[in-house]
C-alpha cells in the first residue's frame, strides 16, 4: 500500500465524484436547453452529496445505530462507529435538492407558458 497504487486506492472515490461534478458543471454552463441545465444541477448536487457521505466512512466501523443498554453500561469506542454528522447534513441537503428541483420545474413551466420554448437563445431573441 505505497506509491502510486496506494494513492489510487486511497483517493479513487474522490476522483469519481470530481468526474461526476464535471459532467454536471458542463451540462450547467454548456447546454442551451433549460431542462438539461436543471438535470446538470441535479448531477452536481449528487456528486457533492456522495463526497460528503464518503468522508464519514471509517474502515471496519458499524452503522451509527447503537445498542442503548450496552452503551449506557460500557460506553462506546468512537473509532468503531461511522461518523453520523455527514449523514445528517446530507439528509437535509437531499430534501433541499428536491425542493429546489420542484421550484425550478415550476418556473420552467411558467417560462414555457410565456415564451413557448425552453431553448435559451430563442428566449433571449424573444426578449429582444
Amino acid at each position, binding site marked *: 500500500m505505497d506509491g502510486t497504487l496506494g494513492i489510487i486506492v486511497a483517493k479513487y472515490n474522490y476522483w469519481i465524484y470530481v468526474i461526476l461534478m464535471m459532467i454536471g458543471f458542463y451540462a450547467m454552463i454548456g447546454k442551451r436547453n433549460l431542462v438539461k441545465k436543471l438535470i446538470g444541477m441535479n448531477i452536481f448536487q449528487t456528486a457533492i452529496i456522495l463526497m460528503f457521505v464518503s468522508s464519514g466512512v471509517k474502515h471496519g466501523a458499524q452503522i451509527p*445505530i447503537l445498542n442503548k443498554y450496552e452503551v449506557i453500561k460500557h460506553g462506546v469506542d468512537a473509532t468503531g462507529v461511522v461518523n453520523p454528522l455527514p449523514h445528517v447534513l446530507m439528509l*437535509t441537503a437531499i*430534501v433541499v435538492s428536491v*425542493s429546489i428541483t*420542484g421550484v425550478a420545474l415550476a418556473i420552467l413551466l411558467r417560462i414555457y407558458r410565456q415564451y413557448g420554448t425552453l431553448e435559451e437563445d430563442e428566449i433571449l431573441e424573444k426578449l429582444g
Partner: protein
Amino acid sequence: MRQLQQRVETQQQVGESLITQTAVRLLVPFVQLFGLYVIVHGHYSPGGGFQGGVLLGSSFIMLGLAYDQKTVLRLMSERTNILFGNLGALIFTGVGALCAIFGGLFLDYSALDVLIPLGPIEWRSFGIFLVEVGVGLAVMSIMASLFWDLGSAGQMDEGL
C-alpha cells in the same frame, strides 16, 4: 354484477388499466402504514421524518398516477393537504417556542419537563419524536402538492 361492470368501465375511462388500478388500490394502505412506521420507528432504525414523509407523499403520487387527479382530490382535498403542511411546520416551530416559553432555550426539549414530569433526558427523546412528526407531515404535504401542481400545470383537473 351490472353495477360492478359499470364501475369498472368508469374507472377505466379515467386511468390506464384495471391491473394497475387494482394493484395500486391494494398497495396504498400498506405504503401509508410503512410510512407511519418509518416516522415512528425513527429512533431505533434507519428512518425519521423526512423519509417517512416522502413515503406518505408517494402514496398520493401513486394514486394520482394510476387514477385521475380528481379521484385523489376527492380522497384528500387540496385544502386539507395544505392544512397538513401548515400543521407540520407549526408543530416544529411550536415545540421550539414552547421550550422557550417554559424557561429553557429555544428547541431545548428538556425544558418541557415542567409540563409532564418524565425526566429531562426522556423529554429530549420525546421532543425529537414530536419534531419528526411535524417534519413528516410537512414533507408529505409538500411532496403531494408538488406532484399535483407540476403534473397538471396548476389546473388540478386531469393530471398526468
